[in-house]
C-alpha cells in the first residue's frame, strides 16, 4: 500500500454534435405574433441563441 498507479486506456472525448442541430421550429416567432424580419431586439437575441435565419 498504496497500490501502484497503472495506465488504463482513456475514453476519448466524443461530442453529441447532432443534438446541436435539433431546434425549435423556425415558425415560432411568427406564431408568437412577432414579425420575423431578422432585425431589432428579437433578431439580435435570436442570433445570440444561434437561431438560423
Amino acid at each position, binding site marked *: 500500500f498504496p497500490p501502484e498507479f497503472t495506465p488504463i486506456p482513456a475514453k*476519448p472525448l*466524443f*461530442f*453529441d454534435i*447532432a*443534438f446541436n442541430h*435539433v431546434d*425549435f421550429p423556425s415558425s415560432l416567432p411568427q406564431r408568437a*405574433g412577432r414579425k420575423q424580419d431578422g432585425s431589432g431586439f428579437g433578431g439580435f437575441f435570436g442570433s445570440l441563441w444561434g437561431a438560423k435565419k
Partner: protein
Amino acid sequence: MSSQDNLSKEATITQLFSDAERIINQGEYAKALKSIDKILNLNPKDFDALHCKVIIFLKLGKYQNALDLVMKNFSEDQLPLERVYCLYRLNKFSEGAELLRKYRTAGNNDSGLRHLEAQMAYKLEDYNASLETYYSLLQETDSKEDTYNDILTNFNAAKAALLFSGGKLKEKY
C-alpha cells in the same frame, strides 16, 4: 363556434406561443411545456405546437415520449432528424440506420442527419464508416467555424477507437 370565438381562440394561441417562446429562451423547458399543452388543448392538430413539444421532450431527455409523439402525429418524411435522434438515444440503432438510408435515398443530405450517421456508426463500433463521414464533414466545414473543432474531436475519437480496436487507418486520414 362563432367567428368571434374563433378570433379570441387565435389570439389566445398567439399569446400562449409568445409565453412559450419567452420561457424557452430562458431554458425553462418543463415550464414551456405547460403553455404548449394549453395550445394543444385548444387545437390538438397545431403542428407547430406539436413540433415544439417534440423538441422540449428531447431537451428534457424524454426520448421515448418524443418518439411516441412523432410517430403519432407526423408522417415519416417529417422531422427526420428528430425521429432518428430518438432512435439513436434509445439505442435502436438498426431502426435508426434503416431510416437514415431511406432519407439518404430520398436525397436528404442534411448535415444534422450526417452527424447522426457518424455518431451511430461510432456507437456500433463501425469506426471506418464514422471516420469517412467525419472526414467529409471536415472538408466541407470552414476551420474558423466553432463546429469545426467539435467535428475534429469526434474524428480523432473515431481514429483512436479504430486503432485501439486493432484496425488500420487509411492513408488519407
